Structure formats: structure tokens, C-alpha cells
């Protein structure tokens, strides 16, 4: 059963990993996205994330459903609120019987999340504030 969460609560990777462990799985692939300081010459100091609840959660469920139907398990946690450098913004983990599906599905979840889930970042850079990318 998938575990999906969008909240202000800090993300504990160990706790997320535990949600993926089960005897039927032989491969667990995890992606952790953190707040990066430099994007080329732009220096970021902090990022504020906001979301459209509960549409964002519904969109995550739509992404997870086909993977779960094929026998995988999906765990996603996304932060909202203010994050500083190196904080974890997003965790995506997929457990599958074998590594090939685990890698493929994990990439699918994070790539699709970036296009289909109503979450936004407000980036505080040293020169100005930027919305989005």
C-alpha cells in the first residue's frame, strides 16, 4: 500500500525507507531532493514550498496507482513551508520485486510529480525572489 504525504513535517529518510521494506520486494530505489545553493551564478538562500491541498495528494495517488497495480510500492513525501540549504524537499521511494522496475518507476514518479502535482516553490535568491524554476 502506498504512502503519500505533503506537509510541513521534516522528512526522515530512515522512516520513509521502513515504509518500503517487505519480503516481496528485492529492490528499493530512493530519490532525495534537497535545497541546492547554486544554480549557475544564482545563489539560493532558502525555498518556500506551497501546495494545493488536497488536489496535490490526489495527483500523487494517480501517479502511484498504476505502479501499485503492477506490484510495486510507492512512498512520496514532499515538504511545504520554509526550507533552508540542504533540507530535504522531496522523498520518492519505490519498492519492486527487481531493480529494473524499481529504478524505472522511481524516475517516473519524480519526473511526473514535477509536471502534474500542484506544488510551487518560491525561491529566495541573493539577487531576487523567483517563483518556480
Amino acid at each position: 500500500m502506498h504512502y503519500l504525504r505533503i506537509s510541513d513535517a521534516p522528512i526522515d529518510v530512515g522512516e520513509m525507507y521502513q515504509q518500503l521494506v517487505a519480503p516481496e520486494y528485492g529492490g528499493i530505489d530512493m530519490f532525495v531532493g534537497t535545497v541546492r545553493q547554486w544554480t549557475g551564478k544564482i545563489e539560493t538562500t532558502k525555498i518556500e514550498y506551497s501546495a494545493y491541498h488536497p488536489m496535490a495528494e490526489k495527483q500523487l495517488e494517480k501517479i502511484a496507482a498504476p505502479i501499485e497495480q503492477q506490484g510495486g510500492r510507492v512512498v512520496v513525501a514532499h515538504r511545504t513551508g520554509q526550507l533552508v540549504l540542504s533540507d530535504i524537499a522531496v522523498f520518492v521511494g519505490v519498492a519492486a520485486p527487481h531493480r529494473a522496475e524499481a529504478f524505472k518507476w522511481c524516475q517516473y514518479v519524480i519526473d511526473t510529480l514535477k509536471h502534474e502535482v500542484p506544488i510551487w516553490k518560491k525561491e529566495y535568491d541573493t539577487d531576487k525572489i523567483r517563483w518556480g524554476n
Partner: protein
Amino acid sequence: MEVKIRLFAFLQDQLGPSITVEVTNPVRIKSLLNQISQQAPQLSSTLANSRLAVNQEFINDEEVILKANDEIAIIPPVSGG
């Protein structure tokens, strides 16, 4: 018919959490976004790339029939992850 539209991110920063607009069914999504752009030209490029959500589902058609009690939202380009 008047409908309330929820706003997020940059749009919310500029116009507040919601706006009320006058629409006639069927509503062409591009026309609706253009209508708001005319009132707030600084948002035109963001609105041109925005999508409409009704009752928390993206509308992928060009037109939609809106009801007064629908939860309508403009979704600017997302940037999670």
C-alpha cells in the same frame, strides 16, 4: 454567471487567494485566462502557461461547463520536487 476562482503561487502573491469573474457557459479556458490577463497584464505570461482545475481535476479540454458551486482553480506552472 459569477464564479470564484482560487489562485496559487505567483498568481496568489499578485491578486490574493481568489478572484471572482463573470463567465458564460460553455467557458473557453483560453478566453477565461485572457480575460484575467487583461485585468492584470503583469500576469499574462504566467496565465498563458496555466491550467484550469475544476473540483481538483485538471481540465484538458478546450472548453468546460462550470457550475456556480464548482471548486475552480487556476494552476500556474508547477515547481515541486
